[in-house]
């Protein structure tokens, strides 16, 4: 009988092995799991499972209250009968400038989008800069000019700000935090907890463009057709949708963690299942190719100018047409539906007629993409 355990010291070169007897399966076993060493990992910023852990284990126990506990992309509070949406977001994207945008426009768009997903008309933004000692002023000027342009185009004002400088090596060029305030439209109340079986799932266009644009920039990848970030403000697209119908349960922008994380969050929050149709999910050929090469799944790659809508089945076609009538939604598609079966799981129907799970991102696919 071979003594096969993990306590065997593996010699520097090779272990003496005899193979004259069959191995004893009962003696094979695996190591115990290690107790997690509690440190922040890059994966805690991925928008996936580790981010959820951080919320559940650290933030909510300390800071929880009825508004925060809803865990929407924006808080909605009432003041003298006016419903305000408030959101905050930090931007650490690397590189600062990329195809289709830069950290400045991204910060403006990202914050506007978090307000828009709550059905709010975005009004004001704050901006705080954390700058690294040695950053060329010219770089900062380019970022600020881009922010101004993005805010002006979107019809929002940047009304307050702050600047801090840290020693060289304590930050990577510059980081931005933005807070946004908007006014929630009357008669509108979206929440990830409102999806019900039968509802229809839509996306507003091609998935994965932002993540792949960033990665291509970072890794120096060349494609026949270059992919641009989809960074864009979505509030006018939401307005177009709401002109058609208010039968919208939930809007989300699938940023970090991609479509899969967003749908898993909604499924968990509403205690429902989801079934997607793989052939209907819009992904550009170039993005598919890049993902294939890099071993990524486009469903997990970040977007910065797309929304996911959960709508009542009776208005699904109208909602689709409304999205498609807007330049930012022209490639919109119905990608699946909400189900009673397999609650809290998102299941993909493959072209082969089989099914598979689309899970939340476990680790970290691409750090610092926004």
């Amino acid at each position, binding site marked *: 009988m*071979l003594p*096969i*355990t*993990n*306590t*065997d*010291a*593996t010699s*520097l*070169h*090779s*272990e*003496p*092995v*005899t*193979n004259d007897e*069959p*191995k004893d*399966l009962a*003696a*094979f*076993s*695996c*190591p*115990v*799991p*290690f*107790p997690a*060493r509690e*440190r*922040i*990992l*890059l*994966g805690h910023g991925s928008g996936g*499972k580790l981010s959820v852990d951080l919320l559940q284990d650290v933030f909510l126990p300390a800071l929880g209250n009825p508004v925060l506990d809803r865990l929407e992309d924006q808080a909605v509070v009432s003041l003298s009968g006016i419903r305000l949406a408030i959101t905050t977001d930090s931007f650490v994207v690397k590189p600062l400038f990329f195809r289709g945008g830069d950290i400045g426009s991204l910060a403006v768009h990202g914050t506007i989008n978090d307000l828009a997903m709550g059905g709010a008309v975005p009004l004001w933004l704050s901006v705080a800069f954390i700058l690294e000692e040695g950053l060329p002023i010219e770089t900062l000027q380019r970022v600020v000019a881009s922010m101004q342009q993005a805010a002006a185009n979107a019809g929002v004002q940047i009304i307050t700000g702050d600047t801090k400088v840290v020693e060289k090596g304590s930050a990577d060029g510059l980081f931005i935090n933005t807070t946004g305030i908007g006014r929630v439209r009357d008669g509108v109340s979206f929440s990830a907890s409102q999806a019900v079986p039968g509802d229809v799932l839509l996306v507003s266009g091609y998935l994965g463009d932002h993540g792949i644009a960033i990665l291509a920039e970072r890794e120096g990848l060349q494609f026949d057709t270059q992919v641009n970030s989809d960074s864009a403000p979505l509030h006018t697209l939401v307005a177009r949708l709401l002109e058609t119908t208010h039968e919208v349960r939930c809007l989300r922008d699938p940023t970090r963690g991609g479509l899969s994380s967003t749908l898993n969050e909604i499924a968990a929050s509403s205690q429902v299942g989801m079934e997607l149709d793989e052939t209907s999910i819009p992904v550009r*050929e170039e993005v*598919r*190719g890049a993902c*294939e090469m890099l071993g990524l799944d486009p469903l997990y790659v970040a977007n910065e100018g797309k929304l996911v809508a959960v709508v009542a089945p009776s208005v699904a076609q109208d909602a689709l047409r409304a999205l498609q009538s807007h330049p930012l939604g022209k490639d919109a598609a119905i990608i699946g539906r909400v189900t009673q079966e*397999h609650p809290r*799981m998102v*299941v993909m129907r*493959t*072209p*082969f*007629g*089989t*099914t*598979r*799970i689309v*899970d939340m991102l*476990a*680790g970290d696919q691409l750090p610092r993409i926004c």
Partner: protein
Amino acid sequence: MKYLDEYRDARIARALAAEIRRRSTRRWVLMEICGGQTHTLMRYGIDELLADSVDLVHGPGCPVCVTPLETIDRAIALARRPDVTLVSYGDMLRVPGSDTDLFHVKAEGGDVRIVYSPTDAVQLARSQPDRKVVFFAIGFETTAPAHAMAVLQAERLGLKNFSLLVSHVLVPPAIRTLLSHPKNRVQGFIAPGHVCTVVGCREYEDLVREFRVPIVVGGFEPVDLLEAIRMLVIQLEEGRAELENQYVRSVQYEGNRPAQEAVARVFEIADRKWRGIGPIPESGLFLKEKYATFDADRVFDLVDICAQEPAECVSAEVLLGHKKPTDCTAFGTRCTPDKPLGAPMVSSEGACAAYYQYRRHLVTL
């Protein structure tokens, strides 16, 4: 994507599946060796498609999974040294060692880098002459040529600060162990196409003759795998046991000679321990004495760490195809990709992780 979409075509896949069902007079037990193949089978639900005609069991071909715990502990010990830059493929970072993983060592300040190619590690050693750069060289016959090239390149550049932490395993000895086992029930194998691209088909021909078992060298796309399964089923139904090559667009009988020569120059074969299976004779590659100065095991003074083992994990039986991941009482509850109990749950190419990721809606946990 051209040259890829053709191999994912649903119409062709359904036709192949229908033919496999038509040709099967009984439910054949087939094993795909490579974790990449397992991943494709699960992702496209090919097991579901063929449930009545073929029992697909999953082989030990996930290099991340079978890397011994002691080796991961060594990588962790190296990454913790202030003078070392540990360079690795991304997959290895989240594999738990005895008490932590490389992601956590990185968070604690260890210099851990991810690269796509070992030659990037050679460049790193060149650009950081004051740091000792160790590349965590794991894998099957597929990654061995690139690792051999990295050593040869480092030698040519006269680098004194570059070494490999080697954990290389070979597929045919594992198949031999599996077929020799009294509990073996596998009746046909899909051999790993990428491995055969490098080493060719000869060794697999020996296995076919020795054990009278049909082997088809298969690719990694769903249509590749369905075609390989069809070829196996036809052989079994006709009572033949031959080596056939489905993956002709990549695999040649002789393999890739220059790659084989590079490996033979740098590495030698010896006994190697597989995580979850145990020691297998003549199943590993080790750096030759001539390249001892590039061997992290010999350059650094590394102490082994022992680990306790839970009896619940059935990884050996899963890796040898005796059990399905879902036969394990811990599957999906006490053992998940976040907190793996054993080898096949640690990497996305492991059989348990593939089941967990894609199929757990079909089982009751």
